[in-house]
């Protein structure tokens, strides 16, 4: 298990390198530069700034210089937020994003799995139809539509919750988390329902019934593992979706998370900031996928990570 984890981390290095390279050159393809917005800038000052940040060097040289920095886990200074390094910005924004994203992921999984199981066990019953129609709706309404509706309802109409902004209090988190979790709940519910229905038709569930086990034991002992395996495989993409989603959500609710910095950085051509966030998230997703694989192997005894034969 440990060896597998180490190997996986090693094999992730080329992936990460590719990500860095692509991100590095793609952002340079975008028109404009980091200091365009400040039009008062005289050519000399701009020259100086470029020199300071090595932007006057040929691109390959910059690239390798940047790689060297990354090796030391140093994402460099931000171009836009003077006196801040990218590392400091990440340290500031990430806890906020993590709280919202993590809770949304958790909510999405819990609610999705519960709803899916319920619908599967009541297959073709009115409850099943109701839950699945809701799930369909949850999937098809985009965040930028859902968020204003929720704000209108809970902030403007009832006045229960703040419409935006950020404090470390539950009121401020509720709406962003809900908006972010909604498509996740819907997708996980559909996934769980489908796999649960399939599992309930297998021979070993029939065996469990033939043993005289009541339904709740059949689900809690025999069905949940195989039924949740597809959900576990979906965790990787789900995490990525949450990260992407959080960029939009943080913008809408004006939350000072990593996503906001990222959007700001992209608009301002803050090369180091954008690159830093992209690479940071890249590493996060790779790590997360590894955890998911370990979880999967723990759940399915037919998988042997150390000798990967057959499966």
């Amino acid at each position, binding site marked *: 298990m440990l060896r597998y984890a180490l190997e996986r981390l090693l094999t992730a290095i080329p992936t990460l390198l590719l990500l860095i390279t692509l991100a590095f050159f793609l952002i340079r393809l975008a028109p404009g530069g980091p200091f365009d917005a400040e039009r008062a800038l005289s050519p000399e000052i701009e020259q100086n700034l470029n020199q300071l940040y090595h932007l006057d060097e040929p691109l390959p040289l910059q690239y390798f210089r940047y790689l060297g920095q990354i090796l030391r886990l140093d994402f460099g200074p931000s171009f836009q937020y003077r006196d801040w390094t990218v590392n400091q910005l990440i340290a500031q924004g990430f806890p906020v994003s993590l709280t919202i994203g993590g809770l949304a992921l958790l909510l999405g999984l819990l609610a999705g799995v519960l709803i899916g199981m319920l619908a599967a066990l009541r297959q073709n019953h009115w409850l099943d139809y109701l839950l699945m129609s809701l799930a369909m709706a949850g999937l098809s309404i985009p965040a930028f539509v859902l968020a204003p509706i929720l704000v209108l309802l809970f902030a403007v109409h009832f006045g229960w919750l703040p419409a935006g902004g950020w404090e470390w209090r539950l009121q401020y988190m509720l709406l962003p988390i809900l908006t972010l979790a909604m498509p996740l709940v819907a997708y996980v519910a559909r996934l769980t329902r489908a796999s649960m229905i399939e599992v309930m038709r*297998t*021979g*070993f569930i*029939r*065996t*469990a*019934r*033939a*043993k*005289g*086990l*009541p339904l709740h*034991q059949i689900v809690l*002992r*025999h069905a949940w*593992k*195989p039924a949740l395996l597809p959900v576990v495989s979906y965790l990787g993409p789900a995490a990525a979706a949450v990260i992407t989603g959080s960029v939009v959500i943080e913008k809408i609710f004006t939350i000072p998370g990593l996503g906001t910095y990222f959007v700001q950085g992209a608009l301002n051509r803050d090369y180091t900031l954008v690159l830093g966030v992209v690479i940071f998230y890249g590493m996060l997703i790779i790590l997360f996928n590894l955890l998911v694989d370990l979880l999967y192997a723990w*759940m*399915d*005894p*037919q998988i042997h990570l150390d000798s990967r034969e057959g499966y």
Partner: protein
Amino acid sequence: MTAAMTPSLLQVSDLKVRFCTADGELQALRSVSFDMQPGEVLAVVGESGSGKTQLALALMGLLAENGSASGTAMFQGHDLLSCGQARLNRLRGSEMAMIFQDPESTLNPYLNIGRQMSEVLEQHRRMPHAQALQVAEEMLHQVRIGNPRECMQQYPHELSGGMQQRIVIAMGLLCQPALLIADEPTTALDVTVQADINRLMLDLRERYQTAIMLITHDLGVVAGLADRVLVLYAGQTMEYAAVRDLYRQPEHPYSRALVRAVPQLDSQHGAGLQPIPGNPPNPLQIPSGCPFRDRCEFAFTDCTATPLLRPARHGGQIACHLETLPE
């Protein structure tokens, strides 16, 4: 152990199983009646699609969602077909157990053997986990598994088909049920393993007085095992007789054809392995009259009318218009 005061352990009458399918209603069983005595081995024999498995599943309350059963099946004073889920759960696994056709898909691949076995005792005998594991291990020993302790820790995919089937048998016998339904328990296994498993079932019947319903398509397999035989064709009883009578003097042309289809080693070449011409009818459109008449060498005009089940000379029952079966 069994509280059965009634003479028979299981009394099935007029059992019908229907399925709703996209192509219309499918009658998998069309009125089947029989009874089983405590400790008896009843063989249910028929070709593929004759309804053998559905008979077993109906008794266990395990029919697919689109299926429904009617009739009565009295087992220890309860009608299995109408007694409700709670009662059924109390009987299944404790008073009646089932072995399925395909051992590979019977066991849960995500749980180890010990867990899957002990839960039966925990459920029905309210045994603490540790004790249940001990009893389960002892039962694995009974079905001649070499290293029961190690086996308890293993997962199904680590075991051969023969081992898995032994475990399923052991699992079924844990609560010493009065009835064990075995649906083609050896069809998927090698002959040598088949011989072992069959021998094992006989021994266990001796020891626990368990009645066994043995389902098969091969009359060769059950000759030495069964007391009585129920021959099914297209969901109907063709003949129901003591095993000796069925092999020595079958009265239904179909039973005799089934006996003669079995390859024979001892006799000279030419005996045995006599094919039954044609194929069983499509279950969605079974012709009226005797369902076997298209393949029967003795079919005559009467056969267009459905033959009723009637007492046979050997003391059992047959459904055939022929007075006597010609040689």
